[in-house]
């Protein structure tokens, strides 16, 4: 029987022509605004910490991260973060809040499968790559840093 008529390359062209693209400009705009707003929030928290507590810059930065991670996990838990991310896209993915969301969402999702075989291993389904390759990158960065500071400076 004569079947469809098309080679897969030609079909790919037809599909591309019929499939709407993501609205790039709009997505970029909202990613910029919402991602920027999260960063401004972080800066605000840091300024407040510096204002009210006698801490140095670095410790204040750590506390800021803790606050942002807490807020992200909280908003993930009450179901707001994914709604924000739907609009914000990369703007909610890139800041540390995105990482917290990637950890908190499977924690909620896999509660039903138990603590040991559910939450434990599944916590890292999305964020695992960030941790693994972050650590690997840090390792190489450490070596380069050591070599440069020991032999060239």
């Amino acid at each position, binding site marked *: *029987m004569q*079947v*469809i*008529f*098309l080679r*897969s390359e030609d*079909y*790919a062209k*037809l*599909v591309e022509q*019929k*499939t*709407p*693209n*993501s*609205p790039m400009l709009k*997505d970029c705009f909202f990613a910029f605004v919402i991602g920027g707003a999260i960063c401004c929030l972080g800066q605000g928290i840091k300024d407040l910490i510096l204002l009210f507590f006698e801490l140095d810059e670095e410790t204040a930065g750590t506390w800021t991260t803790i606050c942002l991670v807490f807020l992200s996990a909280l908003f*993930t*838990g009450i*179901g707001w*973060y*994914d709604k*924000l*991310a*739907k609009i*914000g*896209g990369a703007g*909610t*993915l890139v800041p540390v809040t*995105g990482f917290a*969301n*990637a950890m*908190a*969402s*499977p924690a*909620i*999702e*896999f509660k*039903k499968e138990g603590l040991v075989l559910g939450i434990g291993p599944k916590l890292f*389904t*999305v964020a695992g790559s960030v941790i693994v390759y972050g650590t690997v990158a840090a390792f190489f960065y450490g070596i380069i840093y050591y070599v440069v500071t020991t032999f060239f400076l």
Partner: protein
Amino acid sequence: MNKKIGSGTFILSSPVKITQFEAVVGQKEHEGPLGSNFLYWSDDEYFGQKSFEKAETYIQKEAMNHVIEKSGFSAKDIEFIFAGDLLNQCAGSNFCVRDIAVQFFGLYGACSTMAEALILGSMVIDGGFADRTLALTSSHFCSAERQFRFPLEYGAQRPPAAQWTVTGAGCALLEKESAGPSVVIEKVTPGAVCDMAITDLANMGAAMAPAAALTLKRYFDDTKTSPSDYDLIVTGDLGKVGADILRELLLTDGIDLGSVYNDCGLMIYDLETQDVHSGGSGCGCSASVLCGYILPEMLKKTYRNVLFVTTGALMSPTSSLQGESIPGIAHLVNLKV
């Protein structure tokens, strides 16, 4: 083989009757354009159960129990159940039927399962192996997201071609003889797997459209009919993008689907207001539209001659990670009153 015509369409020698049917859906489906057609729905995505998987089993069981109850028979009067869903190991269906001890075939045809179950259920009756069979499928948005995509609360954007898995179940009772009102299954065309090398998981419509075109073309060739001979030709869940591609594919082969064509994924949601991008999907999409809308309308004679073509994307999460493309399938049932 006197039941086969052409290359793969089968005429049931004594047409099998669909006598009872019921759909159970979630809130989003109830809020859609077909909402008022669904008698059974809940605004609780857990349907009072402890997990989404249990909820899916529950809606399937509800649909099945309503059908059995309305028919006046009991479970032991039914010879076979053909059922399937999207969960690993067809768990939703296995748990649905575990308490009733009816002989059971679990099917996996992805979103094409409803027509697959109707085809097998009617062939078994036509072959003289049974007087009564059930065709039954379900899908649940939350359990499907867990199975195939990210955790629900994970912040991710969906591209415009992505579809929304329907929370719903549909069940139909097939009988050899019946005095009451019924819709008749006259012809069936089982699908063949068709893979046109689409790998984009966010564009299932494009992956399944060639399979639908293949099955429809086979049916039209075998029966020497054309789309204008039917009141309604409806595909399962191609969505906006897939439905568009299907029209185009068949046009290149000289078949114009015209105004009788629609897609369950486009009928169940309002694409403008319900934020479902390209439309609905899932086994429950075609099953609930069939059992909640098409069959009741056929009994009212709104439609007399219908082609019900369900479409399935047969990839697994593992095959996709390994770079495999998405094989599609489409099964066709010709319904008449």
